[in-house]
């Protein structure tokens, strides 16, 4: 499974203007996290006893992990449906999944009132298998670990290939008195390199079992994210409260996953000035309508079975949100049925955005908008609450930008650009100059 030459690092400076803008947003968010730990959750958020889950759970956990399902969706395609041509996309998809899930875990720690008791998840006598949240928590923790393992080959490869330029530069910059001896440092780094070289092929051998675990776990917890709201039968509006919640959430994360993989590829091609991977993208886009059509069918079938179609067409607050969600997903899928649109980066971007927005709105509808505890409770997130979420998202983007520069994540353009020169993809100026290949990787296919 030596796929490492499929990927390459992104050349360029890490500390750009956007880096510092993102960093300041992150710092602002973390200031409010600090306030939350000193003064309590009530000091930064508008959550109440009626709306005990605000945007931290709704966006960061329920929606954020769906958006982080790119790794899951692409892994199904590559390893289960055996479409190896999508393999080059998998590393960046897994990287975003890793950040998405890691930061969902982080915001859970902000949201939990008594996080120091979280060790109880590992004490069998405290296990409570009836709780969907127990299942979600264990699965998400396990999946985050699996994602790190899946990404590890990228890190190991770059350790193996590294010449430790930055490390040496730091050593030279340090005062000779405190700088470590050059010889010892080189010896130790060589040991790290050997260790990585030893681990990498061994990890590669068993990696497939972790990859499959990385497909099983999201299947479990994404459906359980829907099961979480099954119990709120008196509070969740009948448009959304159904026994099919687990199935709908599972399908929802699959089509969000494919759409986000497309968006992510288009955005990173655009912002890193690399050619669009239009072949892969249009193939991926062809799959989305099949999943969305199943989803839409289940939604309509379930509504008519429960006699709630009238509630969807009533034109009130709830039906408005329902129709928005429904039409965004249906509209985005309609565009993707047209072959011409699937081959245009612009239309792909529009339709994938619509589907992601609609899919995310569905989760917001279930967790917040359609949730009514009665007794005149109201909820709208406070500024500090929003800033904590924005800070976490900024950290995610920041991490992605740093990682693609440090590790071979993005598809190698020498390999995958070749069959695109027929004119499907727009080549950006400077794209040639941006590409870089680690020494010794310039090989013939």
């Amino acid at each position, binding site marked *: 499974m030596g796929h490492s030459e499929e990927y390459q690092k992104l050349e360029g400076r890490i500390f750009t203007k956007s880096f510092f803008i993102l960093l300041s947003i992150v710092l602002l968010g973390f200031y409010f996290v600090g306030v939350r730990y000193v003064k309590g959750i009530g000091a930064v958020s508008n959550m109440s006893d009626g709306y005990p889950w605000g945007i931290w759970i709704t966006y960061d956990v329920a929606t954020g992990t769906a958006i982080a399902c790119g790794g899951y969706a692409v892994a199904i395609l590559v390893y289960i449906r055996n479409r190896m041509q999508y393999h080059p996309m998998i590393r960046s998809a897994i990287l975003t999944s890793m950040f998405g899930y890691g930061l969902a875990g982080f915001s859970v720690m902000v949201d939990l009132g008594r996080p120091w008791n979280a060790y109880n998840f590992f004490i069998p006598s405290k296990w409570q298998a009836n709780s969907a949240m127990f299942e979600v928590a264990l699965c998400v923790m396990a999946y985050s670990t699996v994602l790190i393992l899946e990404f590890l080959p990228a890190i190991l490869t770059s350790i193996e290939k590294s010449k430790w330029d930055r490390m040496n530069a730091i050593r030279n910059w340090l005062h000779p008195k405190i700088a470590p001896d050059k010889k010892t440092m080189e010896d130790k780094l060589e040991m790290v390199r050997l260790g990585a070289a030893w681990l990498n092929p061994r990890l590669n051998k068993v990696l497939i079992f972790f990859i499959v675990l990385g497909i099983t776990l999201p299947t479990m917890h994404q459906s359980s994210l829907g099961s979480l709201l099954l*119990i709120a039968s008196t509070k969740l509006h009948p448009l959304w409260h159904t026994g099919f919640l687990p199935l709908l959430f599972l399908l929802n994360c699959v089509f969000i996953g494919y759409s986000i993989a497309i968006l992510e590829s288009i955005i990173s091609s655009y912002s890193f000035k690399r050619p669009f991977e239009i072949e892969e993208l249009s193939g991926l886009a062809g799959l989305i309508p099949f999943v969305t059509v199943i989803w839409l069918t289940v939604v309509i079938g379930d509504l008519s079975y429960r006699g709630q179609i009238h509630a969807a067409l009533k034109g009130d607050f709830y039906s408005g949100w329902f129709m928005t969600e429904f039409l965004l997903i249906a509209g985005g899928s309609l565009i993707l049925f047209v072959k011409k649109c699937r081959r245009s980066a612009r239309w792909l971007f529009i339709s994938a955005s619509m589907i992601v927005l609609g899919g995310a709105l569905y989760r917001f509808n279930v967790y917040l908008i359609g949730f009514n505890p009665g007794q005149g409770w109201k909820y709208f997130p406070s500024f500090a609450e929003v800033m904590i979420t924005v800070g976490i998202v900024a950290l995610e983007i920041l991490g992605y930008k740093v990682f693609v520069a440090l590790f071979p994540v993005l598809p190698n353009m020498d390999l995958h650009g070749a069959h695109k020169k027929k004119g499907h993809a727009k080549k950006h100026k400077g794209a040639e100059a941006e590409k870089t290949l680690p020494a010794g990787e310039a090989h013939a296919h």
Partner: protein
Amino acid sequence: MKKTSRRDFLKLAGAAGAGLVACGAGSALANEGLQVNNDELGMLYDATKCVGCKACMSACKRVNSDYGSLSYEKAKFDEDGLWDAPSDLSGSTRTLIKLFKESEKRWSYVKYSCMHCQKPSCVSVCPVSAMTKEKVSGIVDYNKNTCIGCRYCQIACPYNIPKFQWEKAVPQIVKCDLCKSTNLREKGITACAETCPAGAIKFGKRKDLLEEAHQRLKDAPDKYVAHVYGEHEGGGTNHLYLASMPFNKLGLPEIKPEAPAEFSEKIQHTIYKGFIAPVALYSTLCFIAVKNMKKHQGHDDDHKKGGK
């Protein structure tokens, strides 16, 4: 290549479907109805007897304040906190009397506190067993030493009973535990029932309370709405209500006789019965993925040989 992948996909779908059907059938056979235990402890609140003196509220705080980390809630005009004035159940208040006034002649008091359900949603959803239901007494209890503060119990409770201490850096959930560690242990009765001067709160076993409630309905049918709230709501509760006004007007929601927790657990158990479905899914996927992997490697080798 496309053909094989489609076949694999169908195989996968078939296997997964078969697994789910098998699990579903298993759980349908094993599914038992909810057993109502009428020997559990509870309270009967008669809104027609309540005089709204709030003595129960102050007794609750006096007895439980240390144990439940309850504090007095100041009114806007009372900076010194001489007068406790909670407006709703909260992280400082476990029981509350409210007045619902429709007109000069039609009004009613109502008491809010934990309903101590036969099949409590909060216990069903708590991921770390911080919410528990005692087997004998039926008390729904909370243990702050295990609680992680996820507030899923608040989402789940149809009566909005568990409250969270939003303003504290070290918060906890607050709800009535029938004075389990305080008055009930010392005197064998809850503080509110002991204090009530009007006899509006009766403490006892559920079966005695139900009998009493139906007797009162029979004796004075004109006085009451002909319904004992809590007898069947959400699978039955141990805190029962009698009132002269429709219960939904008093802020007590209309809930179907099936406990919400029954519905969600049925689905969760169908999917995760014996952990068969996840294991089956994992092994099927492993089989397909390893096969695909080998095929791909063989393909690569052919390529290299051809290239040479």
